[in-house]
């Protein structure tokens, strides 16, 4: 699946988008896999309460299943308007 990062999540991880092969069943499991990769991921996902997730461009939750999802995006709370 495609994993996208925005704002300071993108800055900490150092890239806007990557292809991730995973068997993670939920967003939380995917986050665990990413955290385990490298320090920059661990830092980006340090505090999940400061993060939001969208699945296929719909806001979702960290316990949501990833079954059939093609695009996951992680970002801080939005500041539009």
């Amino acid at each position, binding site marked *: 699946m495609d994993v*996208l990062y*925005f*704002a*300071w999540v*993108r800055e900490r991880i150092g890239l806007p988008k990557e292809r991730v092969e995973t068997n993670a069943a939920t967003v939380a499991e995917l986050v665990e896999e990413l955290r385990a990769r490298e320090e920059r991921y661990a830092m980006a996902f340090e505090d999940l309460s400061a993060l939001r997730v*969208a699945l296929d*461009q*719909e*806001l979702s939750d960290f316990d949501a299943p990833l079954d059939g999802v093609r695009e996951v*995006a992680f*970002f*801080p*709370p*939005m*500041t*539009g*308007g």
Partner: protein
Amino acid sequence: MDIRVLADPFDFGAEAQGFAARQSASGAVVTFTGIVRDTDAGLLAMEIEHYPGMTESQLTGFAEQARKRWALEDVLVIHRHGRMEPGDMIMMVATAARHRKDAFDAAEFLMDFLKSRAPFWKREITRDGASDWVQSKDDDEDALSRW
């Protein structure tokens, strides 16, 4: 219904006038526009990042929800991304309805959702060279609970 996400400046006056002029069935038009405000720290620029695709679908969804909740004749949402300077207009919404209460409530609803549920992220660059992501406000999150 007209939803636009764009990098270029837009002409608030012309958009407001054009929107109002199209509303022959509506007695009431409300507009809101957000302007880059100079800050105490001395703002050089604001940069807005967004999530192409999701931004448009979220904004369209908010406008559709507003049309279900209130008797609206028309809705306009324009939101910029990219780099802006103090005094530049960031975004606008406009609502048209027969009755002013519907137009006001729908415009406030759109703004509340746009603030905390549309995938935009602001960064402020101050004249001393510092650059910080704008923190979301609890107030903005709380504002959603009334709808």
